[in-house]
């Protein structure tokens, strides 16, 4: 039987201590968290193979800095879900608030609903799939990794983008500084197909457009100062 931690009876420190110890055991155990009631910093800092299912919505920084673990939120997640994730998989069955996947280095963040503003900000290698829409300033200064959006993107997508790849199926309200639409080549379709499959997304790679950096702002040039 899957061990359950009920947060009406167990405090945050005890829950995280239990999960972090289980992850370090490398035993690929499974845990369920009941009644999270919007707790902040829940299931953060997991460092090993572990499956955690959270039965409800979470507050800030759920699954922050995750390594190897699989975390599923059966609800919505507050700001900074899976921030700085290194590897593993984090799934949000509902919506995600601001800064989802911020600065993430690796792994897959799978958001079944919508994501708010600044989704994927400063991402450094993480893959993010959003089944719904994303808010403004998403992928701001995004460095590496892939952001896939099945719905629409808000204003200033990919502002000051570096080398991250952005794939959007719906409309883009506006592109940020130095972000441009790019040719979808076979290797991009291949990456996209794999991510859609991993995320269980009902969409075809051919339906998406790709956006990336125009690389005009990579080295300071006074003639581009008006673009900032």
């Amino acid at each position, binding site marked *: 039987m899957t061990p359950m931690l009920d947060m009406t009876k167990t405090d*945050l*420190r005890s829950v*995280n*201590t239990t999960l*972090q110890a289980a992850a370090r055991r490398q035993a690929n155990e499974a845990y369920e968290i009941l009644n999270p009631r919007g707790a*902040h*910093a829940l299931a*953060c*800092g997991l*460092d090993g193979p572990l499956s955690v299912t959270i039965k409800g919505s979470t*507050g*800030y*920084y759920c699954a*922050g*800095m995750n*390594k190897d673990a699989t975390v599923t939120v059966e609800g919505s997640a507050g*700001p*900074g879900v899976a*921030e*700085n994730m*290194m590897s593993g998989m984090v799934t949000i069955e509902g919506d995600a608030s*601001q*800064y989802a996947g*911020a*600065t993430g*280095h690796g792994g897959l963040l799978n958001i079944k609903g919508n994501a708010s503003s*600044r989704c994927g*900000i*400063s991402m*450094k*290698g993480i893959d993010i799939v959003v089944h719904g829409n994303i808010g403004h300033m998403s992928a*701001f*200064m995004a*460095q*590496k990794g892939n952001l896939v959006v099945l719905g629409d993107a808000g204003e200033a997508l990919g502002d*000051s983008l*570096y*080398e991250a790849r952005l794939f959007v199926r719906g409309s883009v309200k506006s592109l940020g500084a130095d972000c441009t639409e790019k040719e979808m080549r076979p290797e991009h379709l291949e990456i996209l197909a794999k991510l859609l499959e991993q995320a269980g997304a009902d969409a075809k790679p051919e339906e998406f457009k790709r956006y990336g950096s125009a690389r005009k702002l*990579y*080295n*300071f040039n*006074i003639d581009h100062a008006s673009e900032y």
Partner: protein
Amino acid sequence: MDKTPRTEPRQSWTFSNSINSEIRRAAETGIYDIRGGGAKRRMPHFDDLLFLGASMSRYPLEGYRERCETAVTLGTRFAKKPIELRIPITIAGMSFGSLSANAKEALGRGATMAGTSTTTGDGGMTEEERGHSEKLVYQYLPSRYGMNPDDLRRADAIEVVVGQGAKPGGGGMLLGQKITERVASMRDLPMGIDQRSACRHPDWTGPDDLEIKILELREITNWEKPIYIKIGGARPYYDTALAVKAGADVVVLDGMQGGTAATQDVFIEHVGQPTLACIRPAVKALQDLGMHREVQLVVSGGIRTGADVAKALALGADAVSIGSAALIALGDNDPKYEAEYQALGSTAGAYDDWHEGRDPAGITTQDPALMARLDPIAAGRRLRNYLNVLTLECQTIARACGHNHVHNLEPEDLCALTMEAAAMAQVPLAGTDWYPGKPGF
């Protein structure tokens, strides 16, 4: 021959030669001047304060005989494992990328021998500094370059950087010429491009969010590590109060003489407050909250001598931090490289184009040939010596004021030489019992 007396040519104070040269440079290039270091302008500083020493009303302690303690513990508020330092002088955060790996190693070696901590910077933690730093503070910066939970856990403390004295409200830019393969790899960016260091954190805004961010950092590190919050000298009373509210164990307060790797000269010289002006408001905030000495205050920005250390402590700091002075101790701006500084259009003591990566001293560079000039063992020894001298000087003054611990230094040990310094430090103008703003006058 005309004997009519002529008025001697008069240079404008407003349009000085220095100002005019900058106007010409700007007109030629179309871009602002970028440089490293802190504010170079003259401003009220620790030099404008004096210690009174012991007299009829106070007993001094015997030099070379009676003990004057210097140890300080940082992070006593919440952390399970506070940092214990032998001396109240730490090494400030400086990034690998702006500094060479040898320089980072030398800082770690010197700090460890002297019994104090060193600090990472933007760009992440290197093996050189972790391996050679007995106590290492890990900076948690807006860019999160190289940030990972493994390094977070192997740090001895975590410093959330909100701002720095050289550029409160500003981010940074590591220019492409210093982005080697190793630097680029640590930062997850291509080689050769300018790397922007953000001015705001990507996943929190304001002290309410920061409180939750700190909760996350503590949960990830088992509540062991002291959490510092570093602020630039902008609004020290409120910034300190809000840092305490957000859950800081330690507040690091950096005045505008504090250095940076590279930013606009106009930013360095015109934004922020002098270190001297920041300390008393920060201490008052801690006192008003009943947190003075429970949340430790580390002051940086222009600390050069043991007298500066003693004055900062007397005004209420628990420790100080040095950056520029530590680099000079390693060998930065050494006159032995004068010919090379001249070739770069500068001179020893004034060289500040650290962002160009051509530092003759091998400190602010990633050029392998230049880096090799800095022997990390010898440079570490120089830093150790310098830290020891600062400590001895501070002890000398504390003993003269009758204190058996440097933390017992107090504002009543001081007087000011100028009205400005008296107002900022809130200590009497020399020869009076008055300072501007003193209640009752």
